C-alpha cells in the first residue's frame, strides 16, 4: 500500500513496462501518451487553420486519405468535429497527461524524497483509465455521424438529443468521464503522497515550488473534476435514456422541464478551475526553473505559495465570467466581474516574483530557461488580455469572437505548453540519461514563440474586428468576408509553427535513443531528484535522505567561490 518499503523489482516485460507500479515508468507512459495526443490535436489545428484560410479547398497531403468521400474537402460537420476534438484532446489527453500525469509522477516522489507514490496500484489504474478514455475518444471519431460536434464545452441543448443524434456525443461524455476519473485518482494519490511521504526535514517551506503547484493542482482536480463527472452522467442519461435534465419543456413531447443553463453552470464550475489545473503546474515549473537558471533564490517563496493558494481558492468563485452573455442577473454578473478582477492580484504577485527572481541573477540561458521566460511572455500577454474579457462592457462584444480564442490559447494553451517544453527539456537528462541538442532546442524555441505570438495576437485583431469563433466559413457573411486576409496570414504563421514542432520531434526522438550521455546533475541544482544516479534506480533512494537546506539556496555567500549551489541534503556552511 505505501511506498516506503522495498518490493522486489519486477522482471517480466508486462509488469515492468506495461502494468508497472513504478512511478517513473508510469510517468513515461503518461509522457508518450500525452505527446502522441498532442501531435494528433496539433494536426487537427492545422486542418482547422487550412479551412479558415481556404474555405472549400481540399486539405493538402492528408485530406484525400482522411475525407475520401468529399475528395479531401472539409464539410461543416467535420469542421465542427475538428475544433471540438482539438479542444478536448489538447486539454484532456495532451496537456493534462503531460503536465500532471508525466511530471506529477516524475517529480513528486523524486523531489520529496519518496521511494514511490503512496498508492502505486492506484497510480497504475490512473494511467490505464486515461488510456481507455483516450481509446473511447479516438473510437468516437469513426462512428456513424461522426464524433462530438458541439464544441469542447458541449452546451446543452446542442449536446443533447435535440442538437446531436449520433453516438459520437455520447461516447465523448463517456471519454471525458473516464479521463476525469483518472485525474481524480492521480490527484488523491499526489495529495496523500505529498502529505505523508516527505523525507525527514522536507518541511512545507522547503518543498520545491513545482511540488507545491502540483499539490494545489491535485486539490483542484479532486474537488472540481467530480463536478464535470456529474454533468457528464446527467448528459449521458439525457442522451441514452431520455431523461430531461437539460431539455426544457418546450422542446419535448410530454416530458421535459429541464434547464440548459444548468449545464453551463456545472460545466464552468469545473471549467474555470480546469484552466488553473492546466496553468498551475506550468507556474510551478517556471518558479523553479527561473531560480535554477538565474542561480538565485526564488524571490518571495512564501508569497508565491500564498499567491498560488489564493488562485486555487478563488478559481472556484469566478466561473461566471464565461457566462456574461448568457443572461445572468445583473447582480450576479457584476459580482463575477469583481471576483474575476480580484483573482488577477495573486497572479500579479507571482509575476513580480518571477521578474524579481531574474533581476541581478546570473542567467544561464539554456533551453529550459528560455521556455520559462517564454511562459512569462505569453502568460503576460494572455493574462493582460483577460482584462478585456473580465470587463462585461467589452466582453459583450468580444465574447465568442476570435479575441477569446487568442486569449485562452495564450494563457492555458501556450503557457501550459511552454511550461511542458521547459519541464521536458529540463528533466530529459534524468529521465533518459541523455542530453538533448541545445541548438535544435533553441531553434525550436524561437521557431515556436515568434509565429505563436503572431498567430494569437492576430486573433485579437480578428476578434476586435468582430469575427465570431467556430465559423466554418467566414466569407459566407458579407461583413466578415473582408477580414479574410487576417485569416490567411494567421494560417501561414500557424503552418510555420506546426512545421517547427517537427524539429522538436526529431530532437526528442534522436536524443532519446542516440543523444550523448548526460552527467548526473548537468544543471547543477540541489533538489533531491538531481542527487540521484542516472538512470534512477528502481527504488529511487537506497536510504531516505534527510533534508537540511531549501531548494533554492543558489549563490549563498557562505558557499565560497568554487560552486554556487548546494544539495538539499547538505547543511549550509556557517
Amino acid at each position, binding site marked *: 500500500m505505501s511506498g516506503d518499503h522495498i518490493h522486489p523489482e519486477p522482471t517480466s516485460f508486462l509488469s515492468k513496462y506495461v502494468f508497472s507500479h513504478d512511478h517513473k515508468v508510469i510517468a513515461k507512459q503518461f509522457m508518450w501518451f500525452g505527446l502522441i495526443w498532442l501531435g494528433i490535436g496539433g494536426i487537427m489545428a492545422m486542418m482547422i487553420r487550412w479551412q479558415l484560410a481556404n474555405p472549400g479547398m481540399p486539405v493538402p497531403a492528408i485530406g484525400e486519405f482522411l475525407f475520401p468521400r468529399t475528395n479531401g474537402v472539409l464539410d461543416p460537420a467535420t469542421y465542427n468535429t475538428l475544433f471540438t476534438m482539438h479542444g478536448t484532446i489538447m486539454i484532456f489527453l495532451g496537456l493534462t497527461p503531460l503536465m500532471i500525469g508525466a511530471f506529477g509522477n516524475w517529480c513528486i516522489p523524486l523531489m520529496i524524497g519518496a521511494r514511490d507514490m503512496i498508492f502505486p496500484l492506484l497510480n497504475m489504474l490512473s494511467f490505464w483509465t486515461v488510456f481507455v478514455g483516450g481509446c473511447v475518444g479516438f473510437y468516437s471519431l469513426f462512428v456513424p455521424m461522426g464524433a462530438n460536434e458541439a464544441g469542447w464545452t458541449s452546451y446543452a441543448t446542442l449536446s443533447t438529443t435535440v442538437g446531436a443524434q449520433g453516438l459520437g456525443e455520447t461516447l465523448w461524455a463517456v471519454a471525458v468521464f473516464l479521463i476525469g476519473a483518472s485525474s481524480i485518482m492521480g490527484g488523491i494519490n499526489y495529495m496523500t503522497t505529498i502529505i505523508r511521504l516527505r523525507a525527514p526535514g522536507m518541511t512545507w517551506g522547503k518543498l520545491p515550488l513545482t511540488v507545491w503547484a502540483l499539490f494545489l493542482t491535485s486539490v483542484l482536480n479532486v474537488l472540481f473534476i467530480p463536478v464535470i463527472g*456529474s454533468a457528464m452522467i446527467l448528459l449521458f442519461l439525457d442522451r441514452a435514456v431520455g431523461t430531461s435534465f437539460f431539455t426544457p419543456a418546450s422542446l419535448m413531447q410530454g416530458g421535459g422541464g429541464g434547464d440548459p443553463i444548468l449545464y453551463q453552470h456545472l460545466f464552468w464550475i469545473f471549467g474555470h478551475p480546469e484552466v488553473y489545473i492546466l496553468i498551475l503546474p506550468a507556474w510551478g515549473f517556471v518558479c523553479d526553473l527561473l531560480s535554477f537558471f538565474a542561480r538565485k533564490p526564488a524571490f518571495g517563496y512564501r508569497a508565491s505559495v500564498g499567491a498560488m493558494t489564493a488562485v486555487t481558492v478563488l478559481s472556484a468563485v469566478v466561473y461566471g465570467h464565461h457566462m456574461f452573455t448568457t443572461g445572468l442577473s445583473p447582480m450576479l454578473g457584476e459580482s463575477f466581474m469583481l471576483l474575476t478582477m480580484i483573482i488577477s492580484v495573486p497572479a500579479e504577485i507571482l509575476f513580480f516574483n518571477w521578474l524579481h527572481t531574474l533581476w541581478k541573477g546570473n542567467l544561464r540561458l539554456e533551453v529550459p530557461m528560455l521556455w520559462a521566460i517564454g511562459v512569462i511572455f505569453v502568460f503576460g500577454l494572455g493574462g493582460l488580455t483577460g482584462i478585456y474579457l473580465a470587463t462585461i462592457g467589452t466582453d459583450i462584444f468580444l465574447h465568442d469572437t476570435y479575441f477569446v480564442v487568442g486569449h485562452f490559447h495564450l494563457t492555458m494553451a501556450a503557457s501550459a505548453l511552454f511550461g511542458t517544453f521547459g519541464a521536458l527539456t529540463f528533466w530529459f537528462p534524468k529521465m533518459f540519461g541523455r542530453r538533448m541538442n541545445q541548438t535544435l532546442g533553441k531553434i525550436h524555441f524561437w521557431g515556436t514563440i515568434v509565429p505563436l505570438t503572431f498567430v494569437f495576437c492576430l486573433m485579437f485583431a480578428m476578434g476586435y474586428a468582430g469575427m465570431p469563433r467556430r465559423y466554418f466559413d467566414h466569407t459566407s457573411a458579407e461583413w466578415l468576408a473582408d477580414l479574410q486576409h487576417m485569416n490567411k496570414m494567421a494560417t501561414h504563421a500557424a503552418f510555420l509553427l506546426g512545421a517547427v514542432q517537427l524539429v522538436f520531434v526529431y530532437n526528442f526522438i534522436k536524443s532519446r535513443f542516440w543523444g550523448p550521455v548526460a552527467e548526473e546533475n548537468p544543471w547543477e541544482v540541489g533538489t533531491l531528484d538531481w542527487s540521484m544516479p542516472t538512470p534512477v534506480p528502481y527504488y529511487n533512494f537506497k536510504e531516505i535522505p534527510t533534508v537540511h537546506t531549501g531548494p533554492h539556496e543558489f549563490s549563498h555567500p557562505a558557499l565560497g567561490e568554487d560552486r554556487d549551489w548546494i544539495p538539499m541534503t547538505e547543511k549550509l556552511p556557517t
Partner: protein
Amino acid sequence: MRAAVLNLPREDAATKVNATLGMVFFIGSWAMAFGAIFLSFLVLRQRVGVWPPEGIALPSFPMAAVATAVLLASSALLHLAVKREESDQPGIQPLWIAGLGLGVGFAALQGWLWMDLMGAGRLPTSGLYESLFYGLTWIHAVHVVIGLLSLVWASVGLKTGRYGSHRLSTVSNIAIFWHFVDVVWIVLFLGFFVF
C-alpha cells in the same frame, strides 16, 4: 491469532493513516460529485414551482422510509463491527454479515420502489420529476452496488483471515464508503420525500 496462521505482517500505524487519508480525499471528491448533483436537483426543482408535481403517481413514502431505516441500521452495524475489531473484541463477522444483509435488503426495497413507479406508468422519460427521481437514485444505486460488492469482498477477507484486527484499514475504508452511501441516500430521501 489468525494473523499468525497466515503469517501476515501486522500493518503499521502509518499505513493505516495513509489509507484513511486517501479515503478521506476520495470521499471529499465524491461529495463534490454528489454536491453538483444535489445542486442540479435544487435548481431544477425550483424551476418547476409546484413540488412534488400534482396529479401523478409518486414513489411510495412508507417504503422509502423503511428503506432509509434499513440502510441506517446496516451502516450502524458496520460501524459497530469495525469498532469492536479495533478494540480486539470478537464478533466482527456476524455483525458484518448482518450489515451486508441489510444492505441487500435496501437494494431490494430500492428495486421495489422503481418497479412500483414504473408499474404506475411513470417512466424516466415522463417528465422532470421522473428524470430526477430515476436519475439520482440510479447514480446512488451504482454506489450501492459497488458498496455491496466491497462488503462481500471484505467479508470473504474476514473469513479467510486476510483482514482482521491486524489489517483493518481496507475493512474500515469500506465501512466509511458505506456510511457515505448512507448519507447520500438520506439527502436524497429528504429531497424527494420530506421537503
